[in-house]
């Protein structure tokens, strides 16, 4: 197992935001976190990369998170935050280089150059590689920051709403990138709001409500009419197709 969460809870002050979460992520899995706003998706992601304190056991491999230094953690997991806030006028290429440098790599080696070339190509960043990260579009910035995470070459990538701000073409492109990474043995934990996208991308879905896991399993097992109604308080229309289900919200309850 790459990541194991055993009975993990977290509080913001007096308010409990995560309650008894159990989760396992193995090699080559794409795990999707779904749930309404405030259900604890981002908090869970932050807890498992040590950004917020939590109770219970979080372990990478067999090593508990509490015994892993931040330096070591950067080799276990790369994280793409929800806030795409860059302070300085860095080029896209330089942002990618920061990912490599984070894990002790040198941007002057041929290995790095090859890796960067591949990531730039797979994320369609060729035309903006020399552009300022502050002047590219929201979607381009998302892809550049994801590229930075990929440069860390970690076995697990945690991405908080990676599709936010992406147009349909780039959403599908991202899906292909995730699938390719999965085939290479990289695992991903992503939070998503689009049920259809989540059902088609993820091998496992975890549905959260009020900081608790209400369902965990294959997309078909998790995304049922009843559960969507119960968790999201909307009715959903589910159409099964060869490419996977199309799940759209129909009406508020």
């Amino acid at each position, binding site marked *: 197992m790459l990541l194991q969460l055993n009975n993990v809870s977290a509080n913001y002050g007096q308010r409990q935001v995560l309650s008894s979460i159990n989760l396992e992520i193995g090699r080559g899995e794409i795990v999707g976190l779904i749930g309404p706003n405030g259900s604890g998706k981002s908090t869970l992601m*932050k807890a498992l*990369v*040590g*950004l917020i304190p939590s109770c219970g056991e979080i372990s990478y491999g067999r090593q508990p998170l509490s015994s892993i*230094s*931040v*330096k070591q*953690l*950067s*080799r276990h*997991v*790369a*994280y*793409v*935050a929800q*806030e795409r*806030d*860059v*302070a*300085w*006028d*860095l*080029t896209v290429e*330089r*942002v990618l280089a*920061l*990912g490599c*440098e*984070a*894990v002790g790599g040198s941007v002057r080696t041929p290995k790095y150059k090859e890796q960067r070339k591949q990531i730039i190509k797979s994320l369609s960043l060729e035309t903006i590689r020399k552009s300022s990260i502050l002047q590219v579009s929201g979607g381009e910035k998302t892809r550049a*920051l994801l590229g*930075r995470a990929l440069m*860390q070459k970690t076995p697990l990538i*945690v991405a908080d709403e990676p599709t936010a701000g992406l147009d349909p073409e780039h959403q599908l492109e991202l899906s292909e990138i995730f699938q390719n990474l999965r085939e290479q043995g990289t695992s991903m934990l992503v939070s998503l709001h689009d049920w259809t996208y989540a059902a088609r991308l993820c091998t496992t879905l975890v549905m959260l409500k009020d900081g608790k896991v209400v369902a965990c399993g294959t997309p078909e097992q998790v995304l049922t009419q009843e559960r969507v109604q119960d968790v999201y308080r909307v009715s959903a229309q589910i159409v099964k197709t060869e490419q996977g289900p199309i799940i759209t919200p129909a009406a508020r309850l």
Partner: protein
Amino acid sequence: MKYTSDAVLIWALSIITATLFLASLMLGAADLSLPQLINAALSTQDTPVSTVLWEIRVPRALLGVITGATLGLSGAVLQGLLRNPLAEPGLIGVSSSASLGAVIAIYTGITLTMPFALPIFALASAGIAAALLPLLAGGRGQTLTLILAGVAISSIATALTSLALNLSPNPFAAMEIVFWMLGSLNDRSMQHLYIIAPFIMVGWGLLFVTGKGLNALSLGEETAHTMGVSLPTLRFCAIAGTAASVGAVTAVTGTIGFIGLIVPHLLRKMVDDEPARLLLPSALAGACLLTLADIAVKLFGPQSNLKLGVLTALVGAPFFLWLILKQRRALI
């Protein structure tokens, strides 16, 4: 390519600093020619020229370089740490606290019996401010609380300094306080440099190790954490480094503003906005700018009684205004 341009920038700034340092040694109440300077430097005998050189010119020029480098370097580090181009060493309250310590030393008259009480009081006061800062900012020391804590410490120190001025026992003490606060490199000796040297070395050491962490911090605090940067360690190095070095130079020179704010601005585009690559050039450019300002003070002559801190503020403020207008034009 960028490594070549960095090397060119660093070499150019080093050569300018060395030239200005030499010019600063030559200029003074009695100008010295280069041969005179070399003879005095190599002479084993005590001549009037060698006395002037070693007792007056060298400490002043060295202090100018060290102070400028400290202000430039700490400005670049704090702007990187707080992810804010308006950050400067004064923001964390260390400069005003060092000033308060110095003012207390003058106010109580202890400087009359112990000549080096002033820098020691100033250093102690800067140390207290640096220790208070993380306590006020809270355990996780978020950027905003860090800035607010700095502003609070700075305000308290300024208020107490004003109180000392207000209650000053005699006009001469008040005058001494005011003149000291305006900042100057005049009449400083090698002893002053010896007192602050350990603090400067520790401070610079802590500031220079922040580079890689500041680069990662460009992408946000959360991302930096997952890129292997220990934020508490980074904050400690930046704050303690600034407190030690800026506290030390302020303890000897008084308050000298704008260098720490302007220098990183001047150089940022030359290093492609990268915080780590900004550190050494900022230190060198700070040294250049402050030595240049001190040369200007010397050229105005002792009769003008112009203080270095006043000159840097007079030149720095309009320059900063120009930078803002330039940035505004770029945004339109």
